[in-house]
Structure formats: C-alpha cells, structure tokens
C-alpha cells in the first residue's frame, strides 16, 4: 500500500512538471498578455517594449521557462501582476484555498446528503411517479448552466425575499477574527457565533449552485447501482435465508452499491474546481476559482501558472484518495 501511494505521488510530480511546461508555453502563445492588460489605451510600441523588458517577457521562451523553473524549485512562483499585484502567486493560492475548500465541502455534503438517499429510494420505487420526478429533477440539475441557476437563486432568495446575501463571503462591518481562512470554522473557533452564522449564510446559495451537477451525477449513479445490486443473486439468497429487510438493505445492497458511487464522488470532487470558477465568479466569492477567472481575464501569468498546476495536483491527490477509499470499502482490492 505504501509503495503504491509513493509511486502515485511521484507520478503526480511528473504530471505537474509536464503540465507546468505546457501551461507556460500555452499562455505565452496566446495573443495579448499582461502588458496590454497593464497599459490599456496608453499602450505604444515604445512603452510596451520597456515594460516587457522590465518583466523579462522579451526573452526567448526556453530562457523564461528555465528562470521560472529555477525559482519554482525554491518555492518562488513569481508575483501577481493584476489579481493582487506584488503578492506572491503561491500565497494568493494559499489565501484563496480555504474559501474554496469551505465552499466545495458544503456543496459536496449537500450533493451526497441528497443524492445518495434520493437515488436509493428512487431505485426502490422504480417506475413510480416519485422515481420519474426525481430523475427529471436530476436531469435539470445537469442541463441548466450554473450561472443561470446562480442567477435565479440570487434573484429569489437574496433580492426578492431578502433571506440570504447576494454575494461575497461575509457582511460588511462584521469585524471577524481570521484563523484558518474558512470563515464558518473561524467563527466557531473564536466563538464569534454571529460571524460564523453570517459566513454560513453567504455559503448557502453558492454551495447549492455548485452542488447541482455533483448531486445529479451521484443521484443517478446511486440509483443505477442500487438497481443492479437488487437484481443480484446474493440479495435473493439473503432474502431466502430470511434475513430482515433492514440487514439486507444495509449490509448487502447499500454497501455493495456504494463502490461506483465512491468513485463518482471522488471524480466530482476533482471536478468541483471547474464548477467553482463559474460559481465563485457569479457570487463574487473570493476563492481559487474567482482568482483563476480574474487571472485569465487580466493575463496574470504567475497566478495562472500556480493555480493550474495546483488544480492538477489536487485532482491527482483526490483520485489517489478515492483509490484508498476503494480499498477500505472493498476488501478484495486491499488484499491484492
């Protein structure tokens, strides 16, 4: 098991290295760049050249990449040009990460807490109107774009009914103490309950919007998987042996049906970041996704590089954790 984990971690390093090269070249092959973003209408060839020279952007790509790599191994990924000018790009990622973790965590809790039970009950009542209704609901979840869901949620819950805040992470003037950067947790740790509650209220709508796709996917996989298992011989055997329905469902059906669901959850966690870009942008929620969108618009190369590489590393890590979880759920994999 340990050798397996180590090998996978080494693979991850390789993936990130190759990706860094691709991202580096790709960003610089796009037209425009940070210099345009900084100069705007004031741009002249002369000023452009001066700024490019000052920032080292006039040098050949391999030289630029070499310098980048040299600094990167020392933990220096350059400073932001536009997202938070002058700030270390890696620090920006680390500052934004808690916000995205908090948001993704709540979104996944919602998706799992709704998706698995609903999927299970829909499968048990296959063909009933409730099943059909749940299937349609989940289809809508996948089909409707996140920004539209977000707009509707904001319009009704925030603007029309004034129940929840429109955007941001915490209300103006909350004067909250920051510990971990996860505002809900910070409020609990410092016993600033109002700050925690306020942060939670800010999280609900973005988390709902972000959870729609994972929810729909988890629901459908659970339903399909439970349907498969219900038809298995060992379920029939268990029924024939006279086991109680509770034991059959808990020990035989649900546990066996969970394998594909866990894989799915893992993949969805990995994919959350792409959903977070959209969700965080429309909710002006200052997480990694929002930083990524801003960095792309403003061509902030150092920030883009760090964020894309970090996202890849996270994706690989999550997949590794899924494989470990797999081993725990399914003893056959463990012993192999």
């Amino acid at each position, binding site marked *: 098991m340990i050798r397996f984990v180590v090998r996978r971690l080494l693979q991850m390093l390789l993936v990130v290295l190759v990706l860094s090269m691709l991202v580096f070249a790709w960003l610089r092959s*796009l*037209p*425009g*760049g*940070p210099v*345009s973003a*900084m*100069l*705007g*209408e*004031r*741009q002249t*060839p002369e*000023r*452009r050249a*001066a*700024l490019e020279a*000052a920032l*080292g*952007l006039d040098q050949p790509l391999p030289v630029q990449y070499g*310098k*980048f790599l040299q*600094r990167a191994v020392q933990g220096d990924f*350059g*400073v932001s*040009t*536009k997202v*938070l*000018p*002058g700030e270390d790009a890696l620090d920006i990622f680390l500052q934004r990460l808690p*916000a995205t973790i908090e948001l993704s965590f709540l979104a996944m809790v919602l998706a799992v807490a709704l998706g698995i039970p609903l999927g299970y009950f829909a499968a048990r009542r296959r063909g009933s109107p409730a099943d059909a209704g749940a299937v349609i609901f989940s289809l809508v979840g996948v089909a409707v774009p996140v920004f539209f869901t977000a*707009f509707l949620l*904001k*319009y009704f819950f*925030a*603007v029309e009914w004034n129940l929840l805040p*429109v*955007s*941001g*992470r*915490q209300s*103006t*003037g909350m*004067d909250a*103490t920051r*510990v971990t*950067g996860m*505002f809900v947790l910070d409020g*609990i*740790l*410092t*016993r600033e309950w109002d700050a925690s509650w306020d942060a939670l209220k800010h999280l609900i709508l973005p988390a709902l919007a972000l959870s729609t796709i994972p929810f729909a996917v988890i629901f459908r996989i659970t339903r399909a998987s439970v349907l498969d298992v219900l038809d298995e011989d060992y379920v029939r055997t268990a029924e024939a042996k006279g086991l109680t329905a509770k034991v059959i469902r808990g020990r035989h059906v649900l546990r066996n049906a969970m394998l594909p669901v866990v894989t799915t959850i893992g993949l969805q966690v990995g994919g959350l970041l792409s959903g977070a870009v959209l969700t965080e942008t*429309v*909710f*002006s929620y200052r997480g990694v996704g*929002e930083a990524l969108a*801003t960095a792309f*618009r403003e*061509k902030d190369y*150092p920030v883009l590089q760090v964020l894309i590489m970090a996202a890849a590393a996270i994706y690989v890590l999550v997949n590794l954790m899924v494989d470990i979880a797999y081993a725990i759920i399914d003893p056959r994999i463990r012993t192999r």
Partner: protein
Amino acid sequence: MSPKRTVATWTMAVLTAATLASCADSERNDDNGGGGGDDGTFVFGAAGAPEMFDPFYATDGETFRVTRQMFEGLVGIKPGTAEVVPELATEWTPNDDGTEWTFKLRDDVTFHDGEPFNAEAVCYNFERMFDQNEAGQTAGEYWGYVMGAFSNDAANSLYQGCEATGDYEAKISISGPTSGFPTMLSLEALSMQSPKALEEGDANGIAAEGEGFSFPDYANNPVGTGPFTFGEYDEANGEISLERNDDYWGEKAKSSEIVFRVIPDESTRRQELEAGSINGYDLPNPVDWAGLEDDGNSVEVRDPFNILYLGLNPEANPQLKDLKVRQALYHALNREQLVQTQLPEGAAVATQFMPDTVSGYNTNLQPYSYDPDEAKKLLAEAGAEGMTLNFAYPTEVSRPYMPDPEKIYEALRTDLEAVGIKVNVKTASWNGGYLDNVTAGKYDAYILGWTGDYDSPFNFIGTFFGNLKENDFGTEVMPWGKQLADDLKTADAIVDDAERGAAFEKINQQIMEEYLPGLPISHSPPALVVGPGVEGVIPSPLTAEEFDTVSVGGE
C-alpha cells in the same frame, strides 16, 4: 461502525474542536473604533480590486477611486467639472517664459500621520517621483507619460527641479511651457504623500520580480492629507475600508466610513444594490438605467469627457492614403442613428477629436453629414469602389466611451457595406491581442477611444497624433503627418491661455477638414448609480468622484 467506536470518534472530534477553540482568540475591538460620531458607512461596489494604494505606481481606475479619497494634489478639480482649482496650493504664478512656477501653499494642512505639509514636503514628493529605479520608472507610468523622463534622463524631463523658497512657498521648474502644466498636477498619481511615511515604508523600493512588480511596505500603508484615512484591506473578503479624517483641514466628510466591496460581476453589483447591501456602483449598463431609476435608485450621469473614434491606418491599407476615401467612409456613417440607438442618453455626435469641455475645442466645426450618395461618389472619384477594409473591434471589454463595442461595430459595418465597401470582420479580446494589433498597425480600421486625464487639448489630440513615429493612425506615411505633430508641440508650448486655445482650434479645424486621420464618432456619458437615501454624489466628467460629500441617510 460499532456504536462504541462511533461514540469514541465523536468524543475525539469534540475534544479536538475544544482544543482548537481554546487556542484561537477573538481579536475584536469592542469599542468599534473609527473615532468621532457614527454617521453611517457608504458602501460602494467596485468592479475590480485595487492594485495597491500608492497612487504614484497605480494605473487603473479602481485603484485611483480608492486613493482619491485619501490623497490630494497641489491643484485640484472643481467637483462636477474638469476645471482646475486650488487644493493644497492656494495660487500659482509662472515666470515670463512659463518655465518657473511658484506655488503658494496652505499653511493649515497636516498629513494623516501628523507630519506637517509644507514646501519641504512638496519638494520631497517631487524628488521622490523623479528619482525612480528601473522598475519604478516602468511602474510610475503616469509620471513617464506627463513628464517624459526620470532623473537618469533629466535632460528629457519636463520636470527640472523643486525648491522650497519659503515655509509655504515652493518653486517648480519645468523645461518649457505646456498646456498640461500645472493642470497635470491634479492627476491622482501626482498626489502629495507624507515624506516620513514614504521614507519609513521604503516607498521607492519597488522591484521587478519574475513577471510582476513587488511593492514596498508603503504601498499598503498610504498616508495622505485627504478627508479619509486608510483603514484596512481585507483581502479574503475583498473589502477596503477608509475612515473619516477628523482632523481634515477642509470640510469634514459626511460619512464616517467608506467601504469598497469588490464585485467583479456586473449583474451581481446590480443585485447587491437592489438587496440594499451596497449603496452604489460604477458604470451601470445603459440598458439598466431606466429600470434602476424605477426601483428608486438614482443614476448619476456624468458629462462626457471622452471620444470614440474609428481609427484608420494608411500603413496597413494604402487606399486610405487618399483623403477622398477617408471622407467617403465618414459620409457613409449614420452617426446620428448610432448615437440614438446604441449609446446612452446624453451621448453626442462628435465633430472633432475632443469633447466640447476641453479648451481648444472648435465650436465652428459641423459634423460630417450622413450622405451615402456622396460617399459612393467620392469612392468612385478615388477609384476605390468596392474596396476591402480589414475593420476590427474588441471583445470582452466595456469602456466609458463604448458600452458595447460589438453593437457599435455592427452599426458602423452595416453603414460601410451599404456604400459598397467589403468589410473583413476582425476581432480580438481587449487584453488578448486587440490593443497589440492596433498599435502594431495590423488593422486597416478599428474602433477605439480615450477618456481625458485632465483638461488639456494636448491630452487628447497630442496623445493621438503628437508622436509621429508611434501612433495608431500611421500618420508617419502621410505628407502632413510631421507638420501636424510639430504644430501640436508648438501650440502646446504657448504660455498665454487664449492664444494657445486659438492655436488648438485651428489645428482641430485642419485635422477635420484637411487631414482627417481618423473618424471621430461620438462622446458618451458614463454613469454611476446610487441607492435610495444616498445624497451628495457629484458626478465627475473625469470619473473622479470624491465621496466626502456623500451621506447615507434613511436608516
């Protein structure tokens, strides 16, 4: 999991949380700081985060909007106009040839850190701005733009020196007279900052690092003289707060606090305003103006201080060298209709490359008529019927002079095609190559514009045509290109206001009647919107609102 193990797990979790909680203490101050009476907080929705807080290195409007509330210059701008008025200097007089300017200073001003504002502080500031390292020279874009050079290239700098001729009298020398001086001292970037704070925060210690600039401590601890002092920048929540300066030399600010909340998404800003969690935001989409007013907000429309033009580049397309062709293009455009259908209320058809509030504007010029027949005739005379034009517009951008580039472009393109011109549609995103392609001369024709920095004709037409080698209109290949550039410089150096104004009026007439290097389209008023109960916003044509007069009532 067995019930026993469940209990154990939960016990562990609770214990861990309790341990964590005991080591994290609330850092709230209970007195709720701020000083003075609590007269409400004005919350403004900003479209982007500020770069940092030293206006000298700043380049974008979102940064200046914040620093403007904390800093003042020697000269100021009368609220609601582009007119120069005394601010930290009470009066200024030039010597006979306009190269030495003596500024009398206010004697009742202190910086936020308690340091006195005097002639020494003024000279310290100018020398600080002048004396920049290599990175600082690139980042100090506005100084380079208006002064031309820094201390390492002093001969080419407009600024030549500063001398404290009294406690409250400073003499600034410049290399030669220009219409921009001393008006340029109203630029936010050239504001007066506390010498002590500049020194202690190593304000000039900027460095190029990797692909960006790393800024010294001072850039996040700004100290000025203005009606608000710096509070804090809560990066995690995207909020900048400023506190009222209760020791301000002038009339104290009406609100005790201003908070700028960063909300990049436009529809979210609108929803935040409707929900009442912000009190205003900038550049509401013109299509929303009526709806916003209906909901009880007030849309404050600024006087337009900008120009949208259709740029032409004869280097890219030699057919454009013929004046008749350029005139034909102009006659083909139905600008009246464009202004009415694509631009907000208050927009106007342009007759020249500057708005009518700028000195040197020529009131005698009439707009080129919309006359497709004349356009076809001129094209025939020039032998350019059915000519092809690579005509470009930018995406992913909205500027005060062009709220929706694509729609404006479509209207112009339709007009050009109606007179038989074959338009090749070119497009690129604003930061993704559009500006590069324009400056590199890759488009025959393009739409672009300019918002004035201050009231100076040279800030408009000097920017466009004053630099013969490097301008977006390719005037270098035109027989009159050099003449125009020289005339602009000569006119700009005239000391007498009336004489200078007349010279620029003449140049404006020549540009429009003899040269026509590009086609001025329109002036468009940008707006800002504030919610119910907000009073005292004075819209500025320079989009340079000062919020000290703003109060948030109706609790």
